[in-house]
């Protein structure tokens, strides 16, 4: 028995378009609850280095800043970010920590997280966090990288 399929091959109009076209979708940034806080990440501007210290004391004094999190705030080992698509055990040594622990390994690696009453205040606080990184050699060319032992 053949069943006539009325969906496959037809242009089906989507139900979610009714929200999206009118600006009524709720994206993460649209969530706005009372006493909600915003987190902004301070990222490394150095590609490779030893993270010697983070001084967030001045930043913590800014009105509206609630907390500043660094690796030191985690009692346990810093979780690694797993590869969801294909969890190959060979790649586990290369998983990135969710926040830089003793080293920074790429420009943009999270170093601290500022939690504040608004994004603007949190961004203001970034300028007041002193990060001490001892730069280490950087491998910037793939050819060199292949020859190099692990840094």
């Amino acid at each position, binding site marked *: 028995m053949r069943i006539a399929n009325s969906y496959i091959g037809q242009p089906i109009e989507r139900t979610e378009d009714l929200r999206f076209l009118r600006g009524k979708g709720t994206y993460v940034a649209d969530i706005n609850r009372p006493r909600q806080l915003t987190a902004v990440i301070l990222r490394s501007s150095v590609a490779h280095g030893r993270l010697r210290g983070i001084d967030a004391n001045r930043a913590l004094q800014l009105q509206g800043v609630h907390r500043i999190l660094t690796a030191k705030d985690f009692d346990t080992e810093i979780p690694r970010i797993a590869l969801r698509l294909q969890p190959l055990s060979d790649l586990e040594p290369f998983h990135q920590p969710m926040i830089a622990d003793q080293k920074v390994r790429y420009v943009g690696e999270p170093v601290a997280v500022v939690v504040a009453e*608004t*994004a*603007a205040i949190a*961004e*203001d606080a970034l*300028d007041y966090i002193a990060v001490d990184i001892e730069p280490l050699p950087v491998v910037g060319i793939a050819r060199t990288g292949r020859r190099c032992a692990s840094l």
Partner: protein
Amino acid sequence: MKLPAFDYASPASIEEPVALLASRSGSAKIISGGQSLVPMLAFRLAAPELLVDLKRLQGLNRIVIAEDGVRLGAKVRWCEIDRDARLQGAHPLLVEAVRHVAHYQIRNRGTVGGSLAHADPAAEMPGIAITCEAELTIIGPQGRRIDKASDFFEGSLTTSLAADEILTEIKLPPWPVGRRWAFLEFARRRGDFAMAGVALFYELVDDKIADIHIGAIGVGDRPLRLPAAEAVLNGQTLDGRVIEAAAAAARKSVDPPSDIHAPAEYRRALLATLLARALRQSETRP
């Protein structure tokens, strides 16, 4: 990316902004369209203590076309130039250049004065100012002064404006009917800052090029005239050989920066190509 904190004033008469700028010794900035300033604030590349909005000032947004040239008030927006039917004939080079500024939404807010005062080396309006030998009117605590475009642009994002001065008007010399002209720029995506751009115009006397003006953007720390290329072309009939020679002269005469967008040699080659195309295009313009 949220903006850093600043104070804001929106004065009603021209003397007030000057006084406000002077009162903050360099830490106050004018905001008008805001299409260049606000992105800089968003990236925290600038942190002025005070923004002085020209919003309430009257009389700075006039477009006047007269025998002595085209005057644009500093608050004239790109969309107003685009929509002014008189300018299409009164200064086609200006209109064509303005159509290349950023994007539709930016052109509804950005102003002539803002672009000139910001002085990005790849911006179109500074390029037109240099090419056309414009005059800029500036008001400060000492009163009014007039600067030639060639003196106004001093370097990347740097002009002769003192911290307490405001640009109020630009005057372009009159544009004769039938003048040949062209404007071309190249950017990786429509609306990006030009990696290089060319504006040019000339008269034809007995079929030969006369008094050619060639301006280039994106190939130096400020918009530039190209006197070496102009010298090749003046007095010549426009043909393939002369175009090639002018393009080669232009290429040799500039010293563009290398940056993340393009190495210097690329910009030099790009300038040569754009100049050659612009010269060919000029044959069909007006």
